[in-house]
């Protein structure tokens, strides 16, 4: 599953960026910007999704009790940093 998340995330963002570069030659500014933003968020959410998956996996398996809390703290810090970025 981790491999799938990483592969899909990287490939999709790459595809979106390539499409945006090709369309930028035509001049569709709004579509290009939309594709670039979508590509960026796909790329940035790939490690976040992997992190959520690691936390979820630990939640299911009883032997990694501390791991799920650490994953949760990291996700919370990430969310807090985004909120801090919005406020600034």
């Amino acid at each position, binding site marked *: 599953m*981790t*491999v799938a998340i*990483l*592969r899909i*995330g*990287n490939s999709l*963002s*790459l595809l979106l*960026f*390539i499409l*945006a*570069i090709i369309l*930028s030659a035509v001049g569709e500014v709004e579509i290009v*910007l939309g594709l*670039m*933003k979508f*590509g*960026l968020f796909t*790329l*940035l959410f*790939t*490690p*976040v999704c*992997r*992190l959520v998956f*690691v936390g979820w996996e630990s939640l299911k398996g009883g*032997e*990694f*009790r*501390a*791991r799920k809390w*650490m*994953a949760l*703290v*990291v996700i919370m*810090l*990430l969310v807090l*940093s*985004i909120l*801090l*970025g*919005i406020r*600034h």
Partner: protein
Amino acid sequence: MLLVLAISLGTGALASLMGLGGGIILVPVFTLLLGIPFPVAAATSIVAVVAASNGAALKFHKSGLTNVSLGLWLEIGTVVGAVLGVLAVGVISPSFLYFFFGATLILATLTMLKGRQDLSREDNSKTPSYPLSAALGLNTEDYKVRRPVLGLFLSVFAGALSSMLGVGGGIVKLPLMNAVMQVPLRCAVATSSFMIGITATTGAFMYYLQGKLDLALVAPTVVGVLAGAYFSSQFLTKIPVSLIKRAFALIAFVAAIRMIVRGVEML
């Protein structure tokens, strides 16, 4: 856009051949050759680092060397550091950033030329464990993780360095895990790769929300770096790495001096 694509392609190929994230090459190229302001160059570079680290994580995931619990523990510090780093970019003088990057580039080049040495003890599995390491499940059957609290504090610095300079931060994370926490080098490399993506993502989100991320620069950079890494892994495997390392060291040293000179000029 085509120029950025071509530069990133070369950077991705070179970085992949030498096992680097790419940020250490991208930032000097963007600032010195293309005249892009440092914060924008660092922001673009950090997104490229996310893309490169996703690819590297795929490779290391299969090896089974990644210590996920240790990565998550240190990630608590690096995420905080990444936020502080981006906030610092808006406050501290750009000349300091040039100085700091120049010094980091020289250090990274020297480390690369010298080759990494495994500073962990051969087998520490028999020695007593740190209670916190045991409680957090950081230890494995092969080794025990030392000084978890010191490691957490030092990883704040690694995160700040990563987001501030637009690099992966392996130059701090590897010695930290290997020498301070006594994690074997191969496991430290894999765990660092697991961490870099999350740290860099935090920095990239912050830069984006602060409006310092130029999407027209990000798209060709990411495409170029990923394509370059793929190209080098498929076609450039026959070039002797030692030769590339020496050539890179020379260029990196000149770039580092120019970065420091730029810093002086901006004073």
